[in-house]
């Protein structure tokens, strides 16, 4: 099968959905003229015109607010927020408008909109350009949270997101755009939300990981395999809805779990997944769940500092050895 980049996969999903449905539009900073800061939307404006692929001023609050309004009158906007740290600029729109209006209306309206944004730890972006905001959004009811690791998942899930009649946030990863390649079929496919993917089968230890952390989990699994530790890697792919069944099934087999993520450690996704594992499979656990996440500090600029505070492959290996000891 052909291999394409993560960026290309997203580009294809957008292109195909825009072709399929006239109501699909996209807006964001620099997405037209240069195909976005990361080149992900390249070629779309040429193909679909500057009405459907709209460059916006630097106004994140309005990008989300206008998307919401357009969705309410029947369009299917895909808004791009360049870096996920900039979600702070439009948080009110997400917390009180996008996620609340359907519910507050008693179900009168539907809000088929997607917010695409990029996490970006690991490229010396420093504190203000190295966001990982999935935990913040996961805590807010009323929006689905998608966070793919591979080109295949990114394409299939983005197509599902665009067709979903509900608000969806779609977390991409700047380091994956051109750093991650993978097989993607030529034919059309979609991936349903709420279905975890077993990225590697194993029996001794379960690692739950998502986004770029999947790659590190797989690297760790290879390293651990040399020590005879047989690791299963599960990627939930969507955090809302969250497929606990697949995770619990794995836990019942391995009885040992690492939950790994690039997010700040405290009060994040790892804690939630851990809670749910304990809730559903307490008696199956042979040891406390290990959390591997990034240190609770803003992201430093200098590479040795950033590397130190990030969740790394070695950290997973270390946690695994502790668990297996």
């Amino acid at each position: 099968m052909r291999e394409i980049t993560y960026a290309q996969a997203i580009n294809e999903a957008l292109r195909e959905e825009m072709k399929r449905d006239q109501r699909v539009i996209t807006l964001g900073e620099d997405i037209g003229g240069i195909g976005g800061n990361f080149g992900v939307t390249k070629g779309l404006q040429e193909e679909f015109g500057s009405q459907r692929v709209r460059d916006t001023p630097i106004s994140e609050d309005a990008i989300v607010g206008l998307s919401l309004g357009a969705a309410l009158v029947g369009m299917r906007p895909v808004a791009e927020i360049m870096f996920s740290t900039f979600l702070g600029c439009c948080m009110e729109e997400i917390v009180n408008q996008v996620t609340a209006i359907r519910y507050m209306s008693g179900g009168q309206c539907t809000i088929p909109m997607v917010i695409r944004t990029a996490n970006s730890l690991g490229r010396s972006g420093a504190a203000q350009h190295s966001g990982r905001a999935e935990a913040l959004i996961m805590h807010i009811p009323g929006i689905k949270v998608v966070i793919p690791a591979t080109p295949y998942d990114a394409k299939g899930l983005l197509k599902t997101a665009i067709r979903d009649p509900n608000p969806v946030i779609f977390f991409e990863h700047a380091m994956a755009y051109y750093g991650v390649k993978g097989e993607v079929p030529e034919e059309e496919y979609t991936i349903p939300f709420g279905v975890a993917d077993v990225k590697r089968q194993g029996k001794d230890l379960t690692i739950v990981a998502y986004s770029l952390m999947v790659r590190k989990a797989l690297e760790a699994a290879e390293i651990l395999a040399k020590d005879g530790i047989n690791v299963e890697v599960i990627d939930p792919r969507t955090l809302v809805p969250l497929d606990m069944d697949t995770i619990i099934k794995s836990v019942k087999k391995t009885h040992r779990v690492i939950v790994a993520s690039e997010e700040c450690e405290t009060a994040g996704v790892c804690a939630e997944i851990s809670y749910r594992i304990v809730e559903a499979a307490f008696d199956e656990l042979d040891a406390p769940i290990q959390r591997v996440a990034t240190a609770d500090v803003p992201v430093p600029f200098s590479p040795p500092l950033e590397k130190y505070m990030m969740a790394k492959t070695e950290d997973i290996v270390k946690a695994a050895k502790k668990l297996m000891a």
Partner: protein
Amino acid sequence: MTLDKNKHADFYKSMLRIRRFEETAIEAFSAGKIPGFIHSYIGEEAIASGVCGALEPGDLITGTHRGHGHCLAKGMRMDRMMAELYGKATGYNKGKGGSMHISDFSCGVLGCNGIVAGGIGLATGAAWGNQLQGNSRVVACFFGDGAMNRGSFHEAVNMASIWSLPVVYVVEANGWGISFSTRNAINLVDLSERAKAYGIPGVSVDGYDVMAVYEAAKAAIERARRGEGPSMVVCNAPRMRGHEEGDPQTYRPKDDIDKAKKNDPIKRYSEFLVAQSILSKDELKAIKQQVEEEVAQAIKFADESPYPNPEEALQDLFVEEK
């Protein structure tokens, strides 16, 4: 602009519907029948009535925390509104929204909004959607003078300007944001000057004068419908009551309140209508009668309606796909 008699009758009825709905809701609130808060639209009836009087049926609006007037002027029913205020299952929002969030998408009311300036982005986005769909719908976006200082206002109005979106920004300049005087919050004598920052037309009118509001709104709406972009209409209408029911307005000079009350827009308008022989006293009375019946029926409906089943709290979050 000379208006025909029916238009005047519509305006009068619209304003009276709002006034009487609010007075009745305030009574019910005082009697403990309405939970939460009430921000009454009393004194601002001419604004929503004038603006909505200039809209076509397919046009859209967004309201605010002070939104009952917006809903009524756009044509929503009193009974289901009152039921919503009560938190009843028969309310427009099945009791999930309450006073600050009433909406009726079928009537073009994209929702009131409890966040100051919270509706500006989505109103502008609805206008964008309309523009893309190539229909000729216009969105009227209501908000208070206090909302003009929120960043959301700024970002959305700028975007409407550069994209020539069919939206009219209606500023309800009642002089206050809760206890803070707009004179202290904005360093402008004429708030419509702010439109200059976006290169769009701005005009200030007497917000107690329904005809003046109508005229200004009509011009702005027609402009928007012609594809010439957004405008801002500032309606100056000193607040007649407290910010919300229960507000003793200790921060406000008494004669300021008295002055506002003396200029009561409905009193003024009905006197004008009679003096100019546009509508007779009997005709006004007949309208009053209709409104009284509607209000009485609304209260009865709200009183008698059931509360929603508690388990409904968990519904309406996501659309479930078939």
